[in-house]
């Protein structure tokens, strides 16, 4: 693993208060989900998961067809679809649009896709102000951080942290009560909504047959973002497509429950095009920016393609014992937790952070709760093999490879394997069952790492096979 990853992990390990906060917050989300998917609450939960998996599989296998259908549907509704290969192209489109509209201020509702391409920074460099309107995103935009969690971006901050932040950045009197803090954010953001020239949203789902952008949220900010400013631009990855409006019934039942335990979130907006004649609200112009951003590369791999089924519920983060220990900011890219561990190497290359796919005990809790049944552990295993292949090509980590080659040789030659056991037993001969401090000679490498946390089991004086031989000899 890289020194940076290691350093970030150690930093969190040294902050027990932060660890407790993340453990508690994710634990609450786990409880909420558990109650929402019980046999009584959602009898067809497992069928829904299987159906959602199949729908995503089908859509991605026929993505060209559904992209065309979606673009045609949006245009029929009076909107326009813009296909972008890269984040630069997204920024170019938005800059051009802003110039044409004379826009200065853009309001944004939550969009992981825009985080993925650092959209806010790109817009700022072009003298455009982009303001996050989701409360958590609003907070982390002010701290200059990336979202800590896909669903709860400011999970790592307490109300005291937010009180300090609001006082420093907004110049308001210190306010410790969460409801009052929310009112402050609301007051600031209402002004922004009214002044904004363009509203940028993400998309939870893009419906091919009706050209609709579907947004799922609890704060109402996405609805304001998409209806108050005169222009709405939805920025989403090409994998957000689903074939038909009726398929929403499957995904909406799963998304809220998996994310926060809600049967439905407070707001579900189905937006299909700009304001039509005789309508009272809605934007004058409506665009959907579809980002490839490396996705078509992932589509080429029939097995790992399922990584793109993700509906960003965050359940895998909440249930991941590693995420719950190292938190969201230890991860090397915008996507954290198990889904981040499989998306990052595929988007950024296996050596971007070679340790990432290995930062898992492979416990499988993520796959167990994934609403679209992504086999995350299986993909992690494949990515581990890809990291090792890439390291070998780059001439890196030679000692480890040599160690595993020697290990494999011993394991395929029982006499060598047995000799290795005898030597290890000799090194710790006369010790107790478990050893607190390793003798200098063996206090290195993996043994030292083990002993840094826990007592070390000493090899048995007599191995099982030795006992077996003796016993058989005794009986013969």
């Amino acid at each position: 693993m890289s020194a940076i990853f290691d350093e970030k992990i150690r930093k969190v390990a040294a902050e027990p208060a932060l660890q407790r906060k993340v453990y508690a917050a994710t634990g609450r989300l786990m409880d909420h989900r558990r109650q929402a998917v019980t046999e009584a609450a959602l009898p067809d939960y497992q069928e829904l998961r299987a159906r959602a998996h199949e729908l995503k599989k089908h859509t991605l296998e026929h993505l060209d067809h559904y992209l065309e259908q979606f673009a045609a549907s949006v245009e029929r509704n009076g909107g326009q679809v813009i296909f972008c290969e890269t984040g630069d192209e997204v920024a170019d489109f938005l800059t051009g649009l802003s110039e044409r509209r004379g826009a200065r201020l853009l309001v944004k509702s939550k969009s992981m896709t825009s985080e993925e391409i650092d959209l806010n920074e790109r817009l700022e460099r072009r003298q455009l102000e982009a303001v996050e309107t989701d409360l958590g995103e609003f907070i982390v935009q002010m701290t200059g951080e990336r979202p800590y969690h896909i669903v709860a971006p400011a999970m790592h901050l307490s109300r005291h942290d937010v009180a300090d932040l609001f006082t420093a950045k907004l110049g308001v009197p210190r306010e410790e009560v969460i409801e009052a803090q929310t009112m402050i954010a609301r007051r600031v953001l209402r002004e922004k909504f009214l002044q904004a020239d363009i509203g940028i949203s993400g998309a939870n789902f893009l419906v091919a047959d009706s050209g609709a952008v579907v947004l799922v949220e609890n704060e109402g900010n996405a609805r304001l973002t998409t209806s108050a400013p005169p222009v709405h631009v939805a920025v989403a990855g090409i994998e957000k497509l689903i074939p038909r409006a009726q398929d929403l019934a499957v995904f909406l039942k799963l998304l809220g429950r998996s994310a926060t335990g809600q049967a439905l979130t407070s707001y579900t907006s189905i937006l299909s095009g700009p304001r039509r004649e005789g309508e009272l609200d809605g934007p004058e112009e409506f665009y959907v920016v579809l980002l490839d951003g490396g996705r078509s590369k992932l589509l080429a791999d029939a097995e790992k393609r399922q990584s793109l089924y993700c509906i960003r519920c965050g359940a895998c983060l909440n249930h991941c014992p590693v995420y719950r220990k190292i938190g969201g900011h230890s991860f090397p890219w915008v996507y954290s937790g198990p889904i981040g561990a499989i998306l990052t190497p595929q988007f950024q290359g296996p050596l971007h952070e070679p340790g990432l796919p290995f930062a898992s005990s492979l416990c499988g809790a993520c796959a167990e709760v994934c609403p679209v049944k992504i086999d995350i552990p299986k993909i992690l295993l494949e990515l581990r093999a890809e990291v090792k292949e890439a390291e070998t090509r780059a001439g890196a980590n030679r000692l480890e490879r040599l160690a595993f080659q020697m290990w494999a040789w011993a394991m395929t030659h029982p006499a060598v394997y047995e000799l290795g056991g005898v030597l290890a037993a000799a090194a710790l001969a006369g010790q107790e069952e478990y050893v607190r401090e390793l003798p200098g000679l063996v206090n290195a490498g993996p043994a030292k790492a083990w002993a840094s946390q826990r007592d070390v089991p000493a090899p048995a004086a007599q191995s099982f096979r030795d006992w077996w031989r003796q016993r058989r000899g005794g009986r013969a």
Partner: protein
Amino acid sequence: MPARVSLFVTCLVDQLFPKVGIAMVEVLERLGYRVDFPEAQTCCGQPAFNSGYWAEARAVAGHFLDTFRACDYVVAPSGSCIAMVTRHYHDLFAGDPARQAEAARLADRVWEFSRFLLEVARVEDVGARFDGVVTYHDSCHALRELGIKEGPRRLLQQVRGLELREMEIAEECCGFGGTFSVKFPEVSGGMARTKIDSILRTGAQTVVSIDSSCLMQLEGTLRRAGAPVRTLHLAEVLARR
């Protein structure tokens, strides 16, 4: 004539915890099985597979398949090693249909110990006695890859003198994860400490599981914390009389 059972004791039990293998022999013989131990056995290959060294893992997995080819029943004191054989050999040998077919044939004949007792031997009460309060740790691979949840608990509930007390987070990983435990020692250790907090809250004196790797992680952490709780493999509990 009683059926023949071949032990795959796993490399970990062979070298570090032979008492688990000995206990398994005791229970199986008590039930009337003829037990044998193919001496060429070493490891299932999982350490290399999980570390990304698939060529090395294939060599060791091939050795496993060769060693146990002729066995009717292979029984192992580990959910993780069994899951490696039944769930992962297929992927490991992608592109090698002959080995894949061998793995598929063997997959129906390899058994995790508790499942063998319940589904092949069809016993719940093996005549064991163990005085004390125990709590059961679900090992992740047994739970999520093999679907083993109630079986070991049913076996424990039949043991005379034993009180089974559930911890709050029985299904949460102990943090072992093979090489993960030494590649990310602070994270792995942190996970283990969270787990033992839950174990200690039950008031049990013993933690039982069906994977010695989890128990090694838990016992090492319990001892480091100076906690009076000890670990036992299910086979060791069932061997007591």
